């Protein structure tokens, strides 16, 4: 998609110095559900210049209890609906959209341009192979994962743990079968977005991968 000029008023309340750095960044999101859709919205509002969105699903009514979609989105591919919402915030944001079920062998060509990856898959098995593949292909680039976002309350149990370029948010024990609550999922999604911004700002000059 072509880049439009940014109306500078959009980011005039941003933290000074952040807009210029984040505008040059590319963040990939593997999954656009409860984690990915909410993290993408926070990143767009923060001024991140380019997002790579990957998800195979269409929006269902049961998604609306926690994911950043609306009744009018029902039946649409999530990446397309989310792209419209992101453009409605910042028309100048650049988006690469992939409606597909990701496989391990897709990681390189989908994410080669990303400075950083946000893991936002449902299944723990998928989280595991994505971490392994990303760290193998891009050992110097961060991956921000989530594990344990389900249930209610237990806010104090939502933590951040780091090792090398792997960062993990969540409680690491709650399971999807407990049910999912917008508030708790949203906290972890925004933790992921906040960590992405923190890491990219500390890097200083992203976009040079």
């Amino acid at each position, binding site marked *: 998609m072509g880049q439009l000029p940014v109306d500078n008023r959009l980011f005039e309340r941003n933290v000074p110095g952040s807009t210029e750095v984040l505008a040059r960044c590319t963040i990939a999101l593997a*999954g656009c*559900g*409860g*984690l*990915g859709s909410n993290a993408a919205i926070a990143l767009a509002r923060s001024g991140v210049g380019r997002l790579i969105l990957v998800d195979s699903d269409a929006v269902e009514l049961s998604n609306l209890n926690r994911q950043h979609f609306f009744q009018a989105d029902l039946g649409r591919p999530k990446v397309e609906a989310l792209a419209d919402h992101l453009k409605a915030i910042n028309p100048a944001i650049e988006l690469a959209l992939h409606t597909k079920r990701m496989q391990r062998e897709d990681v390189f060509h989908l994410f080669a341009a990303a400075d950083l990856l946000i893991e*936002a*898959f*449902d*299944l*723990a*098995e998928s*989280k*595991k192979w994505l*971490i*392994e593949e990303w*760290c*193998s292909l891009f050992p110097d680039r961060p991956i921000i*994962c*989530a*594990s*344990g*976002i*389900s249930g209610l309350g237990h806010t104090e149990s939502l933590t951040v*743990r780091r*090792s*090398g*370029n*792997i960062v*993990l948010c*969540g*409680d*690491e*024990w*709650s*399971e*999807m*079968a407990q049910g*999912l609550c917008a508030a708790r*999922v949203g906290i972890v999604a925004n933790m992921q977005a906040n960590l992405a911004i923190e890491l990219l700002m500390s890097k200083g000059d992203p976009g040079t991968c």
Partner: protein
Amino acid sequence: MLTINNRDKIEWHEGMNVRDVLVAMKYDYPLITVTVNGELVTEEKYSTFNIPDNANVIVFHLAHGG
């Protein structure tokens, strides 16, 4: 001595691998990601990746939900 999850300490011995640490710590949850001194160790290397003394081993638990 090894540090596990920035908290627990266990005795190190020559040739100690990731599988030995998981057994010593009684970790039997199947979906985990392990790093040693910040380096990811994939599951097929759990029995062959020798951990150096004084290493920091992190075990991340992966739970469903996204």
